[in-house]
């Protein structure tokens, strides 16, 4: 009968002795009591077996038969042969595993009685949540807390206090190099960011080349935050103003045309703003004397004798830093903070003026629906003007957004959500802010870590691109609207001032103070998906 010494009672009583006050001890004591009550005297071990197994006749039969086998062999216990062979050959039967094999669960070690007891009775001091209701957070139990304290103390009571005579030195206190400005410890960094170098990380679906497609020289490109001399027309021509000259670069053929050369003797002829009209037929040119000139590239054959279509001057005006077209009206932002509107069709071209900035206007864009003009300037203010006020005598801005703390040059409207305006602040500010112009509320502010010089939205991928100046001369691509960083493109060695998007949207040209223009194919459209989309639109047009 010795083989049945696996029965638990003796072991449990040991536990009870060793930990009389612990909750576990209490439970085990209960089990002990329970089994002891039902099995008077540890001698009747056969009774114990049936007690644990009796509920399922099948099982009890199994065990009693095993028992007989054991008995027949003269109390030597079960031999290996009596068990279904298991995979684990190394394990020899030691008389304490019970009669289970890998097919029939060992019922003897499953404490049904105990489980039943725990389910039916509900002692107040139970450490288990035995309620049948929905699980909820465990109640704070003072005893449990005490236990926790004890356990903690056991593991490290004297770990922090170093009692003996030791000296504590610190290495260059508080001198650890700070993380780069703008670095946020993204909790997700471990698992999900694209910046994470492990391969298990989900990457953006497309490959963004980190090197530019092409680099063009831009000698005597003016390093001036308040000028805008780069624009890509809807007809595919890039116009860039370099000093007193205007160059065109044909994106398809790669041809470079020296379109206009203004008289260098006159300081006021410095090109400070370039803007194509929406058809890509005419170029408006702003110069440092405040003049706005119109050119038709088709008609200019010789750069020195190129004749402008029109020259619009206003008395006492000063440098034109930025231009914006709205149909036949070209608006010019000036150093004085004024925005002048010129109707290019009529003789008295100056049809209105917005004066809401106290310093130089350097960013200006019409909303996609052409209802609002957003302007930013050196006074850290963004004004949003309503088109209805264009010709009124004392126009006031619809919105005055004053949250930026530095010059606002980067201004862009979201093409797929016309009421969303994105603005970027300069050196002190370094944030990219999104606004809802309907309510005038700021929806988002993202710290980019550098001066934001320009913003571009990409409709295909619903992404935002920002060009940065000091301290990191990078282009960054962000996912809209989460503004998680998708990519960052380095290469420029001085601050980037302008971005221009190709009409197809796939390419972006950046112009930087390192006198280079770089073309990035960062929004490359997957041919297969593009075809699909094309088919879709064709289908809808046929219908």
């Amino acid at each position, binding site marked *: 009968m010795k083989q049945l010494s696996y029965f638990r009672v003796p072991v449990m009583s040991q536990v009870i002795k060793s930990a009389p006050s612990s909750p576990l001890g209490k439970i085990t004591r209960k089990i002990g009591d329970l089994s002891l009550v039902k099995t008077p005297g540890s001698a009747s071990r056969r009774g114990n077996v049936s007690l644990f197994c009796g509920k399922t006749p099948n099982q009890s039969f199994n065990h009693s038969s095993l028992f007989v086998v054991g008995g027949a062999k003269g109390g030597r216990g079960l031999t290996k042969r009596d068990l279904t062979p298991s995979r684990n050959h190394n394990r020899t039967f030691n008389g304490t595993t019970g009669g289970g094999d890998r097919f029939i669960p060992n019922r003897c070690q499953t404490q049904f009685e105990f489980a039943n007891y725990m389910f039916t009775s509900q002692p107040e001091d139970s450490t288990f949540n035995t309620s049948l209701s929905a699980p909820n957070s465990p109640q704070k139990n003072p005893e449990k807390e005490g236990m926790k304290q004890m356990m903690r103390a056991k593991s490290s009571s004297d*770990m922090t206090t170093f009692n003996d005579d030791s000296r504590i030195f610190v290495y260059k206190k*508080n001198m650890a190099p*700070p993380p780069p400005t703008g670095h946020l410890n993204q909790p997700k960094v471990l698992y999900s960011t694209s*910046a*994470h170098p492990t391969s298990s990380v989900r990457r953006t679906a497309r490959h963004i080349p980190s090197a530019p497609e092409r680099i063009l020289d831009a000698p005597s490109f003016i390093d001036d935050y308040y000028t805008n001399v780069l624009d890509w027309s809807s007809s595919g021509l890039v116009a860039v103003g370099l000093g007193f000259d205007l160059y065109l670069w044909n994106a398809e053929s790669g041809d470079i045309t020296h379109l206009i050369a203004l008289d260098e003797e006159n300081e006021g002829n410095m090109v400070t703003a370039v803007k194509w009209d929406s058809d890509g037929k005419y170029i408006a040119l702003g110069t440092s004397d405040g003049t706005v000139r119109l050119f038709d590239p088709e008609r200019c054959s010789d750069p020195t004798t190129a004749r402008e279509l029109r020259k619009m001057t206003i008395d006492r005006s000063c440098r034109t830093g930025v231009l914006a077209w709205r149909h036949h009206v070209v608006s010019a932002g000036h150093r004085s903070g004024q925005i002048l509107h010129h109707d290019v069709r009529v003789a008295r071209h100056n049809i209105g003026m917005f004066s809401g900035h106290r310093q130089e206007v350097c960013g200006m864009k019409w909303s996609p629906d052409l209802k609002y003009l957003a302007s930013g300037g050196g006074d850290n203010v963004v004004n949003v003007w309503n088109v209805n006020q264009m010709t009124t005598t004392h126009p006031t801005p619809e919105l005055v957004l004053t949250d930026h703390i530095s010059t606002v040059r980067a201004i862009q409207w979201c093409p797929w959500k016309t009421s969303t305006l994105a603005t970027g602040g300069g050196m002190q500010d370094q944030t990219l802010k999104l606004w809802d112009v309907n309510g005038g509320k700021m929806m988002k502010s993202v710290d980019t870590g550098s001066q934001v010089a320009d913003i571009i939205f990409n409709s295909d991928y619903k992404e935002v691109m920002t060009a940065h100046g000091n301290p990191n001369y990078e282009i960054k691509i962000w996912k809209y609207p989460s503004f998680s960083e998708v990519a960052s493109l380095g290469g420029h060695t001085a601050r980037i001032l302008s971005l221009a998007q190709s009409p197809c949207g796939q390419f972006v040209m950046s112009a930087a103070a390192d006198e280079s223009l770089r073309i990035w194919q960062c929004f490359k459209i997957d041919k297969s998906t593009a075809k699909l989309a094309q088919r879709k639109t064709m289908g809808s047009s046929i219908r």
Partner: protein
Amino acid sequence: MSAMDTKTKGAISLKGSAQLVQEFFHYGLNNILYQRGLYPADSFSRVKQYGLTLLVTNDNKLKAFLEPLFQQVEKFLAAKKLKRLVMVISEIKTKEVVERWQFDIQTEDINEEGENSTRQKDEKKIRQEMGDVIRQITASVTFLPLLEVPCSFDVLIYTGKDTQMPQDWAESSACLIENAEQVQLRSFSTSVHSVQAQVQYKLES
């Protein structure tokens, strides 16, 4: 002859042990900096060490900061003076200590020179033990509270009373955390130095 070879192969001197432990701190602390996100993930590069892929900073400023530190640590280790090294992570703005990575060092009493200057322990085994500790440090990120505000770090060392204060170091308090949660990590031993790792962190209130 061959018996000699095997004897010297597994032997480890105080100097060698100090170097090994210093190397462990280099990888261990870099690993903490990366895992806890103190610096951007892209400023780290991958290195194979201890049979693991570990991340070591490639930020020049940080490298320049850490290098003399580890040199000094190695000196102290070789002089059997280092009793404990603690990396304290604190919030930049409030200076509040949020995490303490503590490495308790026990140095066996052996003579630097002479007959007993070496001990037997396979280097491979030591490196494996170190790898296990680093692996556990990495794993502990799962239970440590997130560091949501920008944090910085300091390195403290505990030495004997009679130790001269080296250049660039200053006397400091222990930078303890009130009511900290503590988790004991694994330990390793080079048979000369045994290092017991532990992390303490601020309970989320």
